[in-house]
Structure formats: structure tokens, C-alpha cells
């Protein structure tokens, strides 16, 4: 299991919470070739990213290999306040996962 790959930042402005996150991930498409050996680099990308607040899913993102390396996602939602915890998790094409809790500032 991957660790410490999610870098979230969430802040509340009134009733609206903005979440920005960066995830460290190679996002290999499976189409690129290794320049030295000429062999294809196998595909390896994040398939799903889930954001939960109070056990409720606020964002369920389905990603493909065409999302840039080290994916960045920004979203906004209502109903959360400063100090609340968010749970962010991802799962990739090799079954690897990571989860991170973020506090809304």
C-alpha cells in the first residue's frame, strides 16, 4: 500500500468548502516506450478517487490513463464547516490504494 501520496488542502468559506488535492502517481498510459530498452512501460494509473465527509461521498471520481501524471483535482461542496474531517482515498489499476484524512481549515 502506498503511503503519503495524497496532499489535500481544504478550506471553508461560509457554507462552501473548496478541496484541492494532489496525488503522487506516475499515471502511465501503457503506450509509452522505455527509450533504452524499447519495451513498453506497462499501464499504471489511478482508477477511482473518493472523497467522503461524515461518511457521505461528496465526490466519486473515475479517472483514466489520460489524466496527467500526479493528478490534481479541485472540487467544491456545501454542508461542511471548518474543523470537519474529510477522508480521501484512491485505488489504481494495480490494486494499490492510499487513504488520507484532511481537516477543513
Amino acid at each position, binding site marked *: 500500500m502506498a503511503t503519503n501520496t495524497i496532499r489535500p488542502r481544504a478550506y471553508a468559506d461560509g457554507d462552501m468548502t473548496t478541496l484541492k488535492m494532489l496525488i503522487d502517481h506516475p499515471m502511465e498510459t501503457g*503506450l509509452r516506450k522505455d527509450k533504452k530498452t524499447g519495451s513498453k512501460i506497462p499501464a499504471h494509473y489511478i482508477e477511482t478517487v*473518493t472523497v467522503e465527509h461524515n461518511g457521505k461521498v461528496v*465526490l466519486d471520481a473515475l*479517472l*483514466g490513463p489520460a*489524466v496527467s501524471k500526479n493528478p*490534481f483535482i479541485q472540487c467544491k*461542496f456545501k454542508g461542511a464547516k471548518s474543523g470537519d474531517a474529510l477522508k480521501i482515498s484512491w485505488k489504481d489499476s494495480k490494486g494499490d490504494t492510499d487513504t488520507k484524512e484532511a481537516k477543513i481549515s
Partner: protein
Amino acid sequence: MKRRTLLKSSLTAGVAGVAAAAGLLTPQMVLAAWPKGAFESKGVDSAVKSLMGSNALTASGDISIKAPPIAENGAVVNIAVSTKLKNVDSISILVEKNATPLTSSFNLAPVTEAFIKTRVKVAKTSSVIAVVKSGGKLYSAGREVKVTIGGCGG
């Protein structure tokens, strides 16, 4: 120990299943399985059809796509999609000329604003299409992004 957790989880799953069947649970977003077929589709129409079950797109002026008109590096292109449409269930971002156009699809909860910002790869100059599912209907808008260096295969 393993057996015990297995028993416990199957038990709770069973209870939740019964509760859901009886309509006791408040409706929540059901996590979709990763739509492999849609991500492997080679055209916009087939990708949308595979993802949404329909490809009847209505062009809409209420969807705004923010993207750079010229991307120096196709590997990282900032795309922001927002819409004034109500009851938005999902926002999907497709790049028409990519080998597989579907880049990502975001399922939104009722509390989530119809706004998504992310970064995608754009292989060559292409139209970036946003598909918004709102009230069971599909709306779309497009915007051209010129790419000077390709994002795939580089």
C-alpha cells in the same frame, strides 16, 4: 481472526442489504465500478454511450470550460468545467483526438457544486468536450486546445 472478521462483515452487509431493500436507508450515492469499456472506447460517441448508456448529447451554452487556447505541453493541460445546470449528477471530460477520448468522469453528490478542475493529457490539437449529466439528460460543450508538444508517447 480472519474468519471472525469475515463473518462480521458478511453479517453487516446482510443487514445493510435488508435495510436497503426495505427502503430504510436514506438514498446515498452508490459507488460506480470503474467503467473499463468506456475508458477503452476509441471514439467520443462510443465512450459516452458506454459510460452513460446513451449518446444523445444536447449542446448547451450553460456549460463553461476553462482551458488554455494553446498548451505548450500536452502532458499537463488545466481544464476547469462548471455549469449553471441544476441537479448535476456527473461531469465527464473527453479529449476528442486522444486515442481513447474519455479522460475522467466525476460523480457528484447533491451537496457538491457543479464544478471540477483537473489536469489531463492532450495528445494533439483537439476539441475538449465536457459532458454534464443533469436530470437524466446529457448536455455537452466543447472548446479547442492547440497543442505544440504531444502529451502521449513523449
